[in-house]
């Protein structure tokens, strides 16, 4: 019998080995594209990356009132217009998912800096044992470095590593019973704190009990009240990311996302905020000691800049996202000191520098002209002329530019033409209800002699007329009414 067993085990082993080879060769690629929406993002990464930003919904969530609805990672990229900044964003992601993503990036992709979102809430039991976990892990199981057929087996047998409903409840229950380290707190554990909030209730402005606020206060406690230590699952995941970054030679940054501390204090009290700050400080110290650049955004965003008011989230309006991006860029710039651009007025935070390399997602005017036919850098440029008279254009509310930066504009771009263009103008347009329409066209052939068949760098300084200072909108673009096809790339505008 034992001979039979050993003999069959060997045959089974050979069958599995061959099956893995066949699967990897013929079916794996198609499965990855079908079952992992993270894989196409990894596959789309170029071979050379300066900054890779890993984020969750905080990266991409915007308010409909935002003028610029782009992601935090895009705003980071604005600070480094000449660098390749890319992001992989997955809603609900946390350190374990980031780790899986990072391990799946092939060695052929050269990365200098990796910025990983560190979401304080993701260290809580409520998130660690969330029922969304299964769905998240499912997206990453095929990315793992274990044999592809084994990963596929885990996918269909739901072996993602999450917990079933019973385990989840038991673990959350056990965690919520753990006594807080600070013995001076009026409540021993989350259950007691939660019960006290429920019993006392949170009062609204009229002095009556508000169920919505009471629920929000309880959610603050469940998501924010815990004592961090190295046994925390997420801490271990971040530790693994640190080890991976060392192995790969990446410069690693953790960006601690802002939490709504004002609301936590107002609804629950200073005890909670103090606990949160202590935990955050523990993270900062731990990872700085490990050589990681930690961006501390914890209190960087004020209550009014949080989008969600009925549940603790890390979703910020444009100003909040820009603030985080500015902090991240401020730290990352030590790796690229010559590439950093101050894109906003430090005093007001308002933007003063604009750049579009036709690769990024930032929506400017005439985006339909983006073409992959030619490119100065990357793979895209703006193709215009031949019936499409307007190139990619900056189209921005002029009043959003700080007054002290409305004297002049430095405009720079790259132009490609097969023949020297005769009928091409650089246009700066200022319009508004309070001013007469100001159309300023400059013949490009007067600015520089265009060498045909190659990219030509062009610089121009434009003095903003005093009569146009009350303009509502500023537009900058190239205008080619003729039939000649032209290409524009790397359009940069600096207000001074």
């Amino acid at each position: 019998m034992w001979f039979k067993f050993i003999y069959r085990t060997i045959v089974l082993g050979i069958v599995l080995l061959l099956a893995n080879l066949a699967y990897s060769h013929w079916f794996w690629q198609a499965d990855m594209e079908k079952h992992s929406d993270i894989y196409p993002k990894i596959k789309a990464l170029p071979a050379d990356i300066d900054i890779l930003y890993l984020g969750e919904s905080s990266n991409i969530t915007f308010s409909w009132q935002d003028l610029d609805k782009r992601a935090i990672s895009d705003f980071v990229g604005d600070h480094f217009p000449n660098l390749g900044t890319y992001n992989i964003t997955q809603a609900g992601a946390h350190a374990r998912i980031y780790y899986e993503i990072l391990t799946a990036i092939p060695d052929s992709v050269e990365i200098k800096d990796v910025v990983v979102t560190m979401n304080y809430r993701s260290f809580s039991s409520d998130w660690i044992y969330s029922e969304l976990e299964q769905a998240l892990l499912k997206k990453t199981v095929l990315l793992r470095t274990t044999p592809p057929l084994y990963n596929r087996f885990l996918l269909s047998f739901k072996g993602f590593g999450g917990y079933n409903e019973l385990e989840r409840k038991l673990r959350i229950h056990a965690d919520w019973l753990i006594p807080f380290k600070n013995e001076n707190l009026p409540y021993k554990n989350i259950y007691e704190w939660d019960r006290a909030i429920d019993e006392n209730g949170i009062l609204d402005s009229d002095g009556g009990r508000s169920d919505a606020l009471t629920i929000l206060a309880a959610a603050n406690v469940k998501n924010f009240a815990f004592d961090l230590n190295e046994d925390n699952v997420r801490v271990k995941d971040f530790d693994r990311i640190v080890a991976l970054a060392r192995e790969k030679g990446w410069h690693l940054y953790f960006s601690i996302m802002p939490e709504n501390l004002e609301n936590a204090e107002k609804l629950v009290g200073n005890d909670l905020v103090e606990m949160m700050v202590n935990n955050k400080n523990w993270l900062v110290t731990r990872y700085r000691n490990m050589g990681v650049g930690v961006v501390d955004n914890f209190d960087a965003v004020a209550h009014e800049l949080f989008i969600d008011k009925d549940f603790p989230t890390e979703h910020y309006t444009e100003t909040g996202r820009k603030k985080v991006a500015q902090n991240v860029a401020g730290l990352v710039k030590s790796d690229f000191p010559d590439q950093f651009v101050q894109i906003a007025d430090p005093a007001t935070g308002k933007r003063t520098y604009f750049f579009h390399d036709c690769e990024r997602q930032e929506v400017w005017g005439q985006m339909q002209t983006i073409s992959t036919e030619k490119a100065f850098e990357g793979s895209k440029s703006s193709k215009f002329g031949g019936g499409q008279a307007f190139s990619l254009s900056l189209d921005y509310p002029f009043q959003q530019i700080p007054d002290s930066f409305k004297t002049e504009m430095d405009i720079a771009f790259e132009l490609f033409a097969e023949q020297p263009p005769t009928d091409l103008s650089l246009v700066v347009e200022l319009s508004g209800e309070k001013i007469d329409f100001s159309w300023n066209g400059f013949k490009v052939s007067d600015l520089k002699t265009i060498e045909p068949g190659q990219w030509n760098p062009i610089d121009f300084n434009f003095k903003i007329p005093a009569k146009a200072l009350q303009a509502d909108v500023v537009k900058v673009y190239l205008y080619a009414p003729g039939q000649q096809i032209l290409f524009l790339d790397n359009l940069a505008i600096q207000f001074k």
Partner: protein
Amino acid sequence: MLFNSIDFVVFLPVVLVLFYLLPHKLRWIFMLAASYYFYMCWKASYIILIIASTLIDYLAALQIEKSKAKSRKRLYLALSLFSNLGLLFVFKYYNFAIDSLNYLFEHLDVAKQIPLHQLLLPVGISFYTFQTLSYTIDVYYGRQKAEKHLGYFALYVSYFPQLVAGPIERFSRLNAQLRAKVQLNYENIANGLRLILFGFFIKMVVADNLSEFVEQVYAQPQAYSGLDVALGMVLYSFQIYGDFHGYSSIAIGTAMLFGVNLMNNFNTPYLSVNIKEFWSRWHISLSTWFRDYLYIPLGGNKVKIARWIINILIVFTVSGLWHGANWTFVIWGGLYGLVYIVEHFVNKAFHLAPCRNELSPKRLLLAIKNFVVVTLIWVFFRSQNLEEAHGMFSGLLNQHSEASLQLPTSVWVWFLLFIGSEFLLFNKRFDTWIATKMPWLRWAVYALLLFAILAFAGVQEYPFIYFQF
């Protein structure tokens, strides 16, 4: 715990190894604990229902046996029936009954609306309540001695391989095997693994992959051509068959690893020539249950023809209701009853000879006819409501389409392979069929099935359809 989960892939070998390492006298405790754990992985609190059902039936059966007076016996039987059917009613039929009442009130202009409950239907409740019911009824009629050992009785009720979706076993059959001193036996292990392999293949590779396309058609039948709607119906016939037959094969295979032979639940039902034969090949443990505990007590066929017709209609309608608390299931069951009766009279009127129990062109033609009937009746089973069923039937007449069913080649391959296997397995079970083949062919089949399961199993969360009953 689902069979098609990594939890079960880990759970089964661990339980199996420990089972054979333990001395015989401790095995029942271990298997009972494993069975309760298996159930609690789904919803821990509902284990109380199984324990309650176990205790009530255990005590009721003892009292039935002990009582001398018929009236007392009847009282304890009633207690068992009331508690088991009561459980079923509360969790499964209450909302359906109240919903129907509310509908009636609405149409009679009665302002009153009775609230529905929000309780989750316990997985497998229809299976284990029927299993325990059969036990107390058998004790009542003296066909079965009451079990004195509470542990073994509890294990009979909760035996994990067949706890949540059958096969519904009789006490005499299962208990004797649970008590038997089992030795590690190569044939049992090999046959068990063969059935598990085959079960996973037809559940995860065939049924789960088909379900995606069935869902597409049922979601908007008006968008597909009549041909695609018909294809959707056919695919569902094989989806539900693969799903339930797959589950049963895994259950039977799992029990076999522990030296327990569960009854067969399927025997190539789509090769049946009529509805009567279909129900002797489909969900056999349920149809024999209804035969023994409902049809025969109603008088079976030893009654006048009118009464027989009523008996048939009752049995099939109740069977429909057993499957789900919805008018669609009532119609589904009722239609089987009607077709059964019509076929009976047609056969009688035209003196049609019964088809031989072997594959022949005649059987094949009749099987196609029967498959069409069954497929059309399945529409009621699959539909959430009568409107959806109506949408499917009217979809059969669609001339134009906005969408078309695009089954990938791999799905077609596994689907057609499954259909082909039906002919090979006519009146046979996979484990016994494959055991007779040459080793190279056996291993080629194992390799193919294993590869299909590992590389092509469906990845959506598709629990076994019968878990909801």
